[in-house]
């Protein structure tokens, strides 16, 4: 009797969960289906849910060539990859030093780095903009990349991981005569690989999604990233929904694929970030 009850309960719960899974997926399905429709098909009243012709790829070829999305894609990839590499390296070494070395000011510096995570971006947006004007960095790559050196979240995450590395490993290497940098590169980094993966994915995603700052900094189409490109072409898209959906699809699908490959690392990273309390 009890077993039967719990089977019925499980069944009902699965139905509810599948229903909401469909709700969560619906916008994506709508997006992908629409990217195969002509603009006339999209604006038709009443619109059809499925495209008439699945082989209609003109939206994609148009958005890549006419709307420069090929260039935007390349730029997004460039900024995201370079920034990710810098964030990983800087955060790992800073997090490791703060976790494993005792020196005066250690605690103060760590607390300050953590505190910076609470600063809302509107408070520093205008002064940062002013600084970019002073440094003459407007429109230059460095205006996007410099912030990789101040990833509070990165330092925090790597610090938490470095704490878990046993001191005896490090001492043994020191007795063998390994230099501190060698210990960091050959022992610490490989042991923090899981955290490195999580941080890499987060950084990449944030950069891929970053809109406002690149929008303020980048002044020529040849440097736009996908979010900036999407925002700048929005006006042109109003009359041209087909390419718009293709553009949105190009912005979303690559990270979905990356996510599906690294799902486990993603989830672990988030769960870890949540345990900081």
């Amino acid at each position, binding site marked *: 009797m009890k077993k039967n009850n719990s089977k019925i309960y499980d069944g009902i719960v699965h139905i509810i969960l599948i229903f909401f899974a469909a709700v969560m997926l619906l916008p994506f399905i709508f997006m992908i289906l629409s990217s195969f429709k002509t603009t006339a098909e999209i604006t038709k009243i009443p619109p059809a849910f499925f495209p008439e012709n699945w082989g209609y790829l003109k939206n994609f070829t148009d958005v890549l060539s006419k709307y420069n999305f090929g260039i935007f894609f390349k730029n997004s990839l460039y900024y995201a990859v370079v920034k990710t590499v810098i964030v990983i390296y800087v955060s790992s070494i800073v997090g490791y*030093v703060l976790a494993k070395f005792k*020196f005066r000011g250690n605690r103060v510096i760590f607390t300050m780095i953590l505190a910076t995570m609470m600063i809302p971006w509107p408070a520093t947006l205008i002064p940062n903009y002013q600084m970019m004007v002073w440094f003459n960095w407007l429109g230059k790559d460095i205006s996007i990349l410099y912030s990789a050196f101040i990833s509070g979240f990165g330092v925090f995450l790597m610090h938490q991981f470095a704490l878990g590395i046993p001191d005896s490993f490090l001492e043994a290497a020191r007795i063998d005569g390994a230099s501190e940098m060698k210990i960091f590169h050959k022992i610490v980094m490989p042991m923090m690989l899981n955290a490195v993966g999580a941080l890499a994915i987060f950084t990449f995603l944030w950069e891929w999604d970053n809109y406002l700052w690149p929008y303020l900094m980048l002044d020529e189409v040849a440097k736009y990233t996908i979010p900036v490109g999407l925002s700048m072409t929005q006006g042109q898209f109003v009359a041209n929904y087909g390419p718009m959906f293709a553009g949105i699809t190009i912005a979303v699908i690559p990270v979905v694929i990356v996510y599906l490959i690294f799902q486990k690392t993603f989830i672990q990273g*988030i769960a870890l970030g949540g345990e900081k309390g």
Partner: protein
Amino acid sequence: MKVAKNKIKQSGRKTIIIWTMSLVVIMYSVFVFFPIIYGLSTSFFNWNPFQSVFKFVGVDNYTYALKNPLFWKSLGNTIYFTIGSLILTVGFGLLFAALIHSVKRGTSFYRGIYFLPVISSMVAVSMLWKFMYNYDNGFFNSVLMGMGLSKVPWLQNSSIALPAIMVVQAWKDIGYALVLILAGINSIDPSIFESAEIDGAGKFRRFISITIPLIKNSITILVITKLIDYMQVYTPIKFITEGGPGTDTNTMSFYIFEEAFTYYNFGSASAISFILFAIIFILSMVQLKFNKNN
């Protein structure tokens, strides 16, 4: 010999500490602490980053902001948006986490799907939802028409527009909430549930009186991080309604941005951003304190 080797080791240690900490101190001073001090001081001036002309106006920028009805409107909208989105995100996050945990099977399948919006670009997602909310031929109105109902002006109606954006924000963040809460639930010792089950507590009862108190930490972190995020909401406002209809979805960040980069009132924008900073700071302190006292 031994002493010499020790010295070398010591100096290696010193080198790595000095290099990394110098980098940290310089970078954070230049790009974090200086901008805060600079922003705060320039909020007492009328200025413009392109011409280095500063006119000291004292607290005028603050009084100007506080007297401006648009400031209060955007503050009200921000608070409304934050509370609404928090309730939706945390509420559904808890509900889905409880349901997924209670059936055991399919955890990674559901989590995988619910998490997809979290990783999607907010600009792209906002444009997508904007079209789904489109009055003439958007997805929602097509469905309503298909069911023989009348169309809803989702983004044109003052009282619907902001909740419509809350739904987008919640849709994007539920997966994040779900993952955090599930991680919290999974870290609970299973024997606690078992003994409660033996005592005859039902699934619902167990969730309310055992699970929720034990995952309070995860929920606090979730609420604080999302509260800070939502108080600064910009992208969906910019891409879905541009603050409209009228100023009915105008939020603090949107207002600050317009004030600075559309009207070039940088002093006033700085003042408003520090008011926002103060509000966020006080809220997160209260939240942390509340959690500690409990």
